[in-house]
Each structure stands twice: as structure tokens, then as C-alpha cells.
């Protein structure tokens, strides 16, 4: 099984897969935190900025591993 994701090509320009995964990871983390704010679940976190970073990393790893096509 090939576990190294392949590069993205947009208009002839090659983009590293981690760049795309991290961009999507940050967007997904931002959306998640907006929902947590909306439903007042953010109050259960002691230091929200660190949680945002952690969620972004988790999403990035998840997207980079399972969603970006190999």
C-alpha cells in the first residue's frame, strides 16, 4: 500500500500535499471552533488558543493520512 500522498497540480504548478492538508485542517478547525462557540461548549476548555492549534493538527494529520489521495 502506497502511504505517501501525491502532489497536487493546479494550473501546472505543483503543490505539496501537506500544504493542502494543513490549509484544509485549519479551515476545518476554525469551523469546529465556531460551532463550539455557538453551542457554548468552549467553556469546558481552559486555554482555547491551544485547543484550536491541537484541533488543527489533528485535522491536518487526519486529512493528510486518509483523505489526500495517495
Amino acid at each position, binding site marked *: 500500500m502506497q502511504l505517501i500522498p501525491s502532489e497536487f497540480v493546479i494550473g501546472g*504548478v505543483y503543490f505539496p500535499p501537506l500544504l493542502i492538508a494543513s490549509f484544509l485542517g485549519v479551515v476545518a478547525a476554525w469551523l469546529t471552533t465556531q460551532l463550539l462557540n455557538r453551542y457554548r461548549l468552549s467553556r469546558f*476548555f481552559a486555554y482555547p488558543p491551544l485547543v484550536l492549534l491541537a484541533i488543527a493538527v489533528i485535522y491536518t494529520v487526519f486529512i493528510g493520512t486518509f483523505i489526500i489521495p495517495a
Partner: protein
Amino acid sequence: MLSFRFKESFKTALAMTTAYGIALAMDWEKPYWAAFAVAFIGLATVGQSLNKGAMRMLGTLLGGLMAFVILALFPQDRWGFILALSLVFAFCTYMRMGDSHQYFWQVVGVALAIIALSAGFDPVNAFDIAVLRAQETALGILVYSLVTVLVWPSRTEPEFNATVDSLASTQLRLFQAYMMEMRGQGGTEQGDALHAEAMQNQSQFSLLLDAAVTDSFEVWEVRRQWRLYRAKVEEFAWAMASWRDGFSGLQGLDLDALLPNLRDFDEEIQARLADIGRMQTGQSPSRQPQDVVLRPDTGQIDGLSHFQVAALTAARTQLQALARVTRSLFEIASELHGLGRAASEQREEPRSTHGFVPDPERLTASVRVMAILWMAYLAGVYIPDIPNLVGFIIMSGSIGITFVSMPQISASILLLPLSVSLLFAGFVYLLIMPSMSSYFELGPLIFLVTFAICYLFFNPRQVISRQAGLSVFAVVTGITNEQQYDFVSFADSTSMVMLVLLILVIVTYFPIWIHPRKVFVQLLARFFRSAEYLLSTMRWDPDGTPTRVDLWRKRFHTRELATLPGKLGTWVHTIDPGILGHTPPQQVQTLVNHLQALSYRMQALLEARTKPQADFLVQELLSDVRAWRLLAQRACGQLSHDPASGRHATFRSELDRVLNHLEARVEEVLNRATGAQFSEMDGEHFYGLLGAYRSVSEALVDYAGTASAIDWARWRESRF
């Protein structure tokens, strides 16, 4: 008829195209530095632009000099170099947030970063880089100045005169509205609206005065008188605010009976203000100011409580202060229009020279800007292949100095203008510019792009978008005589801008987490800490000599008390409505208004405390006044630990109890006093102080009432 917007955009575009053309014709490297100068000095009138241009030029020269010193001291020591650079840069940031010459200090910082970093990475050419930067900035300033002087020149004087006229008229209407409000004949809405209008006129007048001094010989000739006039206008605003603040204590009093000549006084002040307006439009005054002193009717006053007498005394004192300041304004206006010489005898009060008192907000900004510079530098040292490393550190510092000076603005709002600017500049650079072969083609393109950006983002609130658009265009296109087109160059510029944005986002959380919700509560706590300290200084022996440290601490807390309500006001609109729960957003503004009132009253109390008091009163009432002070001090201490802890009913009952007891004691002591023990001057001072105690108590109770209506539990909840 062409619009003002069209003309200004046209002038900036013409200056930009000309500056580029000359820099290219001279075969100078980096012609976009001249373009930067044009992009950042464009303002509405000739005077304003010339002022800003002069600041930019002097700032560049000083920044260059500082850069040479740093380069000479740390030629082969990168850590010493960045430490010295970041410290000086932090100093420039601190100065940039001061009361004057903000733009000058910003340019010093930016020029320092550009010259020191460009030369630090290329020490052989350090001197050439500094000279190039200075000459291209001078070129941009010269070109823009010539364009504003020659093409549709827009002088400051007409706008300045209109503003002065409007200010005089607003002052008159504001006085009339407050007078009606004091007599209980009108609501507060009209006064609030006129106060906002007067503040706006006042800041516009102050801004235009510096510009008019530069571009109008008539104004320059009498610049000292105009500056004195500005100082008196500020004094007038302060006297009006203090006067209005005491209206609550006058409720239910028949003022026309208590002050029999109040009507004459009112007419006299109105006549003076109307004549000041008349003189500003070039007419002669209808009459000269008459001496008018407000005398109370002693027979009527006997029926009042001591606190009512105190409120009346405070109102009289404030009205007399207004009489003095309107007379000064009248005399200065006479001299300005060649109708008298009295004002020449008046002098601006010398500025206080009590040494350095740090401002926590400015220190915070300095720490944050150092963090930005260090992060960018460390990224450059430890992360390989950072695109355009020198440009990246310079851009981080240059945008950072503006960013940290406006902590209310979130880094995320820069994302859209920067992204759009990058895409647009990339489109021009990659798809349009390669087909061009001479400046006859490139020139119109620069003109059109600059015109479009200036025209689209003309509104002053869009200044960040306008400057982002113009600077990103200049950086991405990198126009030079040996032009190259490379996608990698565009990709590098894009990555660089995004990395800068990432650093700004990180600095929002580290080393100091800037969150409106938290900052607001911290500022409230600081306010009450200062109030508590200042109340504690009232125990100082008036005949004793406090230590220098004590005096310094008192100055620090006095300034905190005076400035914190204004600082809190700038955060009100950034509070996320989500944290307010069921609290209406206006409640937060009301809280800040009550804090402002408390600030005024505390300052009045401290001033009243400095006046001499009759010895027998001091001895007799010492323990009662001490009881009040300890109670107020305890309340402020409690609020400094938790600004939400005030309970309206508890505060009200405790303060009422102490004040009622104080009043009874005053009654008892005054009944025993003989005429020799208590002169008229003693009475004025004593009632001034008594009124100040009362008004501070009322302000504390009002604050507690408003604070208890806010859902603080919801406010304190963590949010992303």
C-alpha cells in the same frame, strides 16, 4: 464637475507613475521604494501631505543613522545585532503610540528595519543601501508634493476656517443645552448629541491646524495664537464636562432663586460664544466681555442641606472656570482677527516635567513588536529556505508596528485585503506585464492600477486595504529596468505575505493573549486599583513631604485614572455579542460612561483635596472623613479584584449611611463654628471637598448598578 474622490485618486496615480518613471530613468535599484513613499503620504490637502512628507523624510534620515550605529556596533554578532535592533524598534513603537509625531516614529522604525536588515545581510553595501533608500524616499515625497501643489491644489485653509466656525457654533449650542439641562428644562439626549459633535469638531480642528500652519501663510503668521486657542478649546471642553457631571446633585433646586444673577451670567457667556463665532467669520464682535461673578443668595441657601450647598458650590466653581476660559477664547479670537492684543499676554502652560511615567499599553505594544521581530528572525535562522528572508523580516516589522499599535484590530481582517491584493498583483505581473516592452506601456498600467486601488478604497476606513493593495502591487511586480517574469518570484512573495500574517496571528496569543473580553476586564481592574491607590494617598499629611517614589506612583495612577475610561471605550465595539448573553450591548457602553464619570469625579476630589481647609474642620471631621475614605477605598479594592463584585443595594446603603453621618457631623461642627474660624474662602473649599465626596460615592453606586446588570458569568466563559 469631477469629484474629490476622482481628483485625489488621479493625483496619487500621477505621482506614482512619475516617481516610478524617474527612478527607472535614473537606473536606481528598487524603484518601488519611491512608490512606497507616494503610497503612504497621500492625504487630503497640500498641508497635510507636506507635513507627512516631511515626517517621512526626517524619519528616514534618523532611522538610517540608527541603523548605521547598530551595524557599526555589531558587525559580526547576529544575536547582538537583532537584540539591539529589536530594542530600538520597540522604542520606536513606544514613541509611535504617544501623543505627538506618531507617523515620524513609525517611519524611523520602518526605515531602521529596512536599512539595518538589508545592510546587515549585505554589509559591504550597507552605506549604498541607506543612501538609496533615503534618495528614493525623497524622490517620492518631492514628486507627490509637486503634484499636490500643481494639480487641483486643495488648500487646508477653507476647510480649517469652516471647522473653526462650526466648532464655535457647536460650543454655543452645547452651552445652551447644558444650561437648560442644569435648570431641569431639557433631557440629556440633545446634550449628548452636541457633545459628540463638539468632540468631532475639536479633533478635526486640531488635525487641520497643523496642516493649515504648513500651507497657509495667514495661519502660519499667527500660529502661536492658534495653538493657544487650541489649548483653550481643550480647557473649555474639560470645564464643560466637569460642570455637567455635577448636575445630578442640583436636582430639585430652584437655581434662579439660589443664584439671582444666573440669567445675566448665562446671557454673558452666550454673548461671548456668539461673538467668538462672529469673529471667526470675519465680523466684529457686538460687545466686549463684561465681568460677571455668580453670587449666591445667602438667605435662600440657609434652607439647603450641606450636600446641596456643596453641589451648588461645585457648580458655581465650574461656571466661574467657564467664564474665565470663554474670556480667554474671546481675547485670542480678537487678536487672531486683528481686533485686539490682549491674548498676547497669555501663554501656553508649560508641560509637566515630572519625569518618565510608563504607559502599560505602549509597553505591551513594544513587547509584542519585539516578539514579532524575533519570531521572524528565528524563523530565518532555523528554518531553511524561507522565501525572500530579508523582505520577510522587514515586512513583519513594518506591518507589525502598525498592527500592535491598534490591538483592537484582529489579524484575520488583514487576510481578505492581502489575498485580493496578491491575486490582483499576480494577475498583472504574470499575465499583463510580460507583453509590455517600454515605459510608455508600463506607465499607463501603473497609473490605471494605482487609480483603481485609490478610487475603490477611498474611504478613510479602508486605509488598510488601500495601503495593502498599493504595497503588495509594488512588491509583487518588483518593477526594475532588468525586469524578469518568474512564477517562483510570485509564489515567494505570496508565501512571504502569508508567513507574515501567520506571525501576526501567533502574536495575538503569545507572549500576551489579546482577547477583547479579557483585556476589558483587565483594564477595569487596573482602573479600580488606581482609584484605590489614589484614595489611599488622601491619608498623607498635607504638611508632610512624600518620597519621590510615592509622588511617581501617584502620577502614574492619576494618569491611569484619567486615560483608562477612554481606552476601555475603544474596546467596547470589539466585544463579541455572544459573550453578553441576555445583556444588551449598550449596557457595556453605559458601564464605560459611568466609569468616565467616576474618573472625572475622582480627579475633582483629588484637586479639591489640595486646597487648604479650616483647621478646626480638619480636626473635628477627621475620623468621619476617614470612615468615608476607608469605605470607598475598600469598595475600589474589592472592584479591582473583581470588577463585577459591586452590589448596587449594598453600596448604596453603606455609602448613604456614612454620608448621612458625615452630614450630621458637619451640621453639628458648623453650628459651633465662629465667624473667625470659618471664612468665606474656607466655606468654598470645604463645600467643594464635601461635594466631591458625595459625587464620587454616587458614581461608585451608579457603576455598581450598571455592572450588576451584566451577565459576568457568561462573560468569563472561555471562547475561541
